């Protein structure tokens, strides 16, 4: 395992700047999650590190070695593709064995058999080993594609939304399993997702990408509690942060245009009146949809609240985030 360093990596596709001076360090044994919506450049970062694509400018180092001009095979990285990319003409077993049989690894057959079986059991696909890769459900395909990365012992695992097409239970299981593998083996992960639960639970560090620019890097907690911009603040938090005109409440700093309120930043029971428009009971929590001076606010309240639609709730901001006209945080 090794660390990965991106140094001012820039990549353009025609007129589009996919990555703009991205500098990022994935420490050895670290689990870095890249967050951002579709088109933010997350996958491009993975392609740069894997060697499937080359930067126009900037350098990439893996384990202290400059790999910018090396082929994917020479970089010793494993990657899980968003579209599975299983070899359709091979069985599940052959798919899993494929990287081990590469001219670089040349693993002995007994060793291949052992590793394939082990990974297949971890991912609960042992009973499908002799199936064709095409004769699987979407979730099984995704597990095979994760398995194809896990059979190896690469410098870094690159994962592009690997859990996106799994059902909720399997997703939760695999999230824990991946985290366990990472903790047990000290593997380095660079992981792309737009699922904030994955980011919050697995990441040691989170990088927030906005149209090719890395706007914030930090622990999930730092990003949640101390976002640098409206954009970064919107990446994490469930329900999403409420963004309202800053002058709606008293006490906003002069430069502030927007006030950001996470549920825990809304104190209930004091302050000004708002009307309950909807009560969503989710079991472990209950969401309140409020109408505050014609602005919609979503917050969380105790699970067994007696509140109902039409009730009046007093609210007050508590240590809110303020953002200026460009969306940057105002202290």
């Amino acid at each position, binding site marked *: 395992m090794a660390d990965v360093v991106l140094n001012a990596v820039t990549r353009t596709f025609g007129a589009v700047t996919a990555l703009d001076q991205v500098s990022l360090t994935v420490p050895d044994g670290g689990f870095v999650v890249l967050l951002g919506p579709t088109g933010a450049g997350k996958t491009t970062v993975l392609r740069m590190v894997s060697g499937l694509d080359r930067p126009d400018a900037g350098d990439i180092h893996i384990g202290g070695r400059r790999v910018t001009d090396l082929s994917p095979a020479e970089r010793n990285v494993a990657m899980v593709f968003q*579209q599975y990319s299983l*070899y*359709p003409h091979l069985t599940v077993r052959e798919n899993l064995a494929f990287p081990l049989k590469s001219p670089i690894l040349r693993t002995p057959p007994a060793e291949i058999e052992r590793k394939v079986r082990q990974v297949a059991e971890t991912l609960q696909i042992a009973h499908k080993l002799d199936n064709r890769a*095409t004769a699987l459900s979407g979730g099984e395909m995704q597990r095979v594609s994760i398995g*194809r990365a896990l059979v190896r012992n690469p410098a870094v695992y690159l994962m592009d939304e690997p859990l996106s097409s799994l059902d909720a239970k399997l997703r939760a299981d695999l999230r824990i399993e991946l985290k366990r593998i990472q903790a047990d083996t000290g593997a380095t992960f660079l992981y792309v997702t737009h699922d904030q639960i994955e980011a919050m639970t697995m990441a040691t560090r989170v990088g927030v990408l906005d149209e090719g620019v890395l706007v914030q890097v930090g622990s999930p907690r730092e990003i949640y509690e101390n976002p640098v911009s409206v954009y970064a603040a919107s990446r994490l938090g469930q329900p999403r942060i409420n963004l309202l005109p800053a002058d709606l409440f008293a006490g906003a700093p002069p430069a502030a245009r927007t006030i950001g309120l996470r549920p825990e930043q809304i104190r209930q029971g004091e302050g000004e009146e708002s009307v309950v428009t909807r009560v969503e009971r989710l079991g472990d929590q209950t969401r309140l949809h409020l109408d505050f001076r014609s602005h919609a606010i979503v917050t969380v309240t105790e699970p067994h609240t007696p509140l109902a639609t039409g009730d009046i709730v007093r609210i007050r901001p508590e240590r809110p985030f303020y953002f200026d006209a460009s969306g940057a945080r105002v202290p």
Partner: protein
Amino acid sequence: MSSFSVTEPSPTQKWVAGTLVALYALVALMPLVWIIATGFKSPSDAIAYPPKLLFEPTVEGYVNLFTTQTRATPEALAANPPETWYERIVAENNQTIVGPSRFGERFLNSVIIGFGSTFLSVFLGTFAAYAFSRFKIPLKDDLLFFILSTRMMPPIAVAIPIFLMYRAAGLSDTHAGMILLYTAVNLSLSVWLLKGFIDEIPVEYEEAALIDGYTRFQAFWKVVLPQAATGIASTAIFCLIFAWNEYAFAVLLTSGQAQTAPPFIPTIIGIGGQDWPAVAAGATLFLLPVMVFTILLRKHLLRGITFGAVRK
């Protein structure tokens, strides 16, 4: 993703469809049946009017096809009685066999030139198509158009220049010359067809293989090629059919050593009267290789192996 609702056809629908297919097969197979049947007729049955649907089969046509004969007087035949079954057949027409005909050689030439040029067209075409499909090539569209343009003129328009060039280059009436010519003509077809097939193979498979520790060539060999098998098989069949049936260039550029079967078969008509059963026998045998080749490759013609393992 689109969805289809598939309903089991009703017995009536099945019956109608079956009848239509059977009727079409009858029409389509008629010439084939005619040729095969004529090959087993006697010369008089072959030209009988109205045509004989029922006849006494004979292999006389095949014997005539494979042998060179000369007229023999009844006295000579009595002095030298025929020993083998085929000599006896020939003797009934007061003929005697003086040696094998050229059909075997010409047939072998067709095999060498047909399969040789097919192999080369598909081999070179696959690499070219892969490059056109995957790499940034300057003037790609112009090059592809140029390759296609070689196919635009009718063969007869270029026949004379090629004839002169071949004579000057010493390629006239050689196997190498004919293989080269058919490969050149077929390459446009194979590059375009195969590019279409390779374009449809998602590039993600190769990328996965590159990450899995393989070089680009190994990825091509182990991942692209097996998935292109369908396209390669159908391209090979098209190339073979062209090279196998080609007549115009073969007539013009070959006469002896490298002559293929198509220009040879009509010459049978002239040998010893209008021997239609021998011509039909030659045509029947000539049909076989393409038929066998197509049957051998038919499982690759069934599409579907590449569907489903890349999420769209």
